[in-house]
């Protein structure tokens, strides 16, 4: 865009500035509209699951409900507790929203990439991690026990789940050889646009793990402990009302949107799909955007489905799940990803592979033998690991009840 502006006769720095401003505006508008749609979508979907109708009064099918609610929250009283740390209390929602909006800088819309950062994948995670600061500020700045508890819980949860989240991406990075989202999308364009990572055993497990960890990062059920309303009222948001609360809400749903977008990009081929390349040009771009949004909203539907079905975990169970279940599986997945890469790509690092199985796949010719071996091997490793971990988890079913003397002694010594 900047180039086009320069050709129009603008100074180069001015054209960069204008282009950036336009981009930022588009992203912000797209993000907020997406978030509004998301709230409506979630409420309608969940109400159908519960045999009711959901918001259907404001606008066609209730589509304007989020707008009316935005207006409502804006006109509400903005209360700050007297004993609160006013500045920190005020800045917390700003930090939250800022972090979310930052992540939208690299998140693609179909095949449109606002900024193609080299470390885009990590960037998304890192900005997600900034949420913890906002939470801490909100929890501490409110000067409320429930808010503090919620903030502490939230921060502990975010930090814990960042680790499996980052490590679940490593297989994708290994398979692509790059951390740029654009390259990752390009790498999934084989087989007529259907070469998505999720169809490989490594990608499938990675997808499941990443999506689970992202649920926790986005504070979605069953990991919505920071705002567990039945225990600690609204967690770090307890003392927020009016516009500030709306900003928290906005940031929450925008980060959920970001999570869906990123998952769709990393594992579901982004804007790739049958027909995109064939169409090409503007039509292809539009089709890719449609594909992309469909994938993202399908992912969000899964989130809604989970929210409608399961209760939330307890804090200790939540931590246990991250460290005892997700982390080992993520490590195993990295192992099988390296097998996958070796079997599919290596010809020089380990020449025997080529000798045994033939040359690795190229864009024109797929080496089906190598692919089959890779699939079987990684499938075995991953399935074995999952079975083992589940076995261990089942053995560790809580021992709160000490029925025998030995257990009693174990539990107390």
């Amino acid at each position, binding site marked *: 865009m900047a180039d086009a502006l320069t050709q129009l006769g603008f100074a180069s720095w001015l054209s960069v500035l204008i282009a950036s401003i336009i981009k930022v505006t588009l992203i912000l508008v797209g993000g907020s509209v997406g978030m509004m749609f998301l709230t409506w979508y979630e409420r309608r979907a969940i109400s*159908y*699951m519960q*045999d*009711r*109708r959901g918001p259907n009064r404001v606008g066609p099918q209730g589509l304007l409900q989020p707008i009316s609610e935005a207006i409502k929250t804006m006109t509400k009283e903005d209360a700050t507790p007297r004993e609160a740390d006013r500045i920190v209390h005020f800045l917390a929602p700003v930090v939250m929203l800022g972090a979310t909006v930052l992540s939208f800088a690299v998140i693609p819309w179909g095949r449109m990439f606002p900024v193609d950062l080299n470390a885009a994948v990590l960037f998304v995670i890192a900005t997600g991690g900034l949420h913890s600061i906002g939470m801490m500020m909100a929890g501490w700045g409110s000067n409320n026990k429930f808010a503090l508890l919620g903030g502490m819980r939230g921060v502990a949860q975010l930090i814990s789940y960042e680790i499996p989240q980052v490590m679940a991406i490593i297989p994708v990075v290994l398979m692509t050889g790059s951390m740029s989202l654009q390259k990752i999308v390009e790498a999934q364009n084989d087989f007529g646009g259907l070469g998505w990572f999720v169809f490989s055993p490594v990608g499938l497990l990675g997808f499941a793990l990443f999506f689970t960890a992202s649920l926790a990062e986005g504070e979605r059920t069953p990991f919505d402990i920071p705002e567990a309303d039945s225990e600690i009222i609204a967690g770090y948001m307890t003392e927020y009302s009016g516009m500030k609360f709306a900003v928290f809400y906005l940031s929450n749903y925008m980060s959920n949107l970001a999570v869906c977008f990123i998952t769709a990009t990393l594992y579901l081929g982004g804007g790739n799909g049958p027909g995109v390349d064939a169409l090409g040009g503007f039509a292809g771009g539009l089709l890719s955007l449609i594909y992309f949004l469909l994938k993202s909203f399908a992912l969000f539907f899964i989130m809604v*489905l989970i929210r409608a*079905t399961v209760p939330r975990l307890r804090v200790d169970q939540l931590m246990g799940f991250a460290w005892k279940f997700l982390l080992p599986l993520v490590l195993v997945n990295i192992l099988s990803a390296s097998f996958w890469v070796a079997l599919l790509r290596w010809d020089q690092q380990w020449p025997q592979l080529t000798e045994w199985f033939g040359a690795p796949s190229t864009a024109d010719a797929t080496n089906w033998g190598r692919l089959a071996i890779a699939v079987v091997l990684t499938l075995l490793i991953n399935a074995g690991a999952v079975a083992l971990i589940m076995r261990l988890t*089942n053995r560790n*079913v809580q021992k709160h009840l000490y029925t025998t003397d030995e257990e009693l002694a174990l539990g107390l010594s």
Partner: protein
Amino acid sequence: MTLSHLATEDVFVVERNDADFRAGQGMTKGLGIVFRKFRKALFGKPNSDRADTEGQFNVQYPEERLVLPEAYRNMPILLYDDATGHELCTSCFQCERICPPQVIHITQAKDPATGKPVPAAANFVLEYDTCMSCGYCAEVCPFDAIKMDHDFELSTGNHPELDVNYDRLLRPISYYEAIAPTMWSDVKEQAMKKLQNNIKRRPGAIGRDHGQKVKGGAAVAVAATPVAGAAPAAAAKPRGPVAAIGKNMPEEKVAKLISIRAANAAKRGGGDAGAAPVAEAAPIVETVVDTPAASAAPSGPVAAIGQNMSEDKRAKLEAIRAAKRAQRGE
């Protein structure tokens, strides 16, 4: 512990499935069920029968309404005869005595000439805000004068308004007949008989001097169109709350229906009371057809009487005179 009062086969231990291997199958099953519900609610038909467990079950309230069963009780109302304007209440104080929260306050009417009590109430105040809708007053009333209304949309910002006076409590019998036809037909005969006996003991306008009844009373029935109107309209349909998730009828249709009902009721009531002047039935229909627009105003049924009162005063007097003539003629 031995359980001698229970046979062994009468007790069973719930299955905890503690030893099962857990690999997310329970959660998956739950997700499947929720998804099925989603599908059924989105594409299936709504939940209309009591046997249905799938499909949407909510009612879009202001447009769609459940038919209230006849026995439904909300706030008490007092009845009067359409034709003669005579109130059924004789101020026997039964309801005042039984009322658990003690919200009924009756003043007995006295004959201005002799100072003796007359079987009619001079004033009747009911505190709607404290009423607990138990329905005892309607149950104990020997004259079937006090009945339970079906209008539940009484919310107001004006609290003193909820101390309801006699004139605002009165409804014509036709109104009650429309909301609870069978319940009224069960008691109709004896109620009207008792009323005739009481009328004989009421001198002058006592027992008829509250509110604008003949015309205003019809207005009450119609004034309820935006709020309670659906209830009488739906009474024509088969009974039963579930069958009632009906679409709302056009407003004019409802109004028409009610007007016809009211006219019929007035005729019937007149038949009981004696010769009902035809001239009296006509204004009712007229009012009815005219009223919907006016009644759409947020004032609600109760306020509607008061509004119409002044302009209808003359009509009322005429009606009373006509009724008197009819009585004398008999």
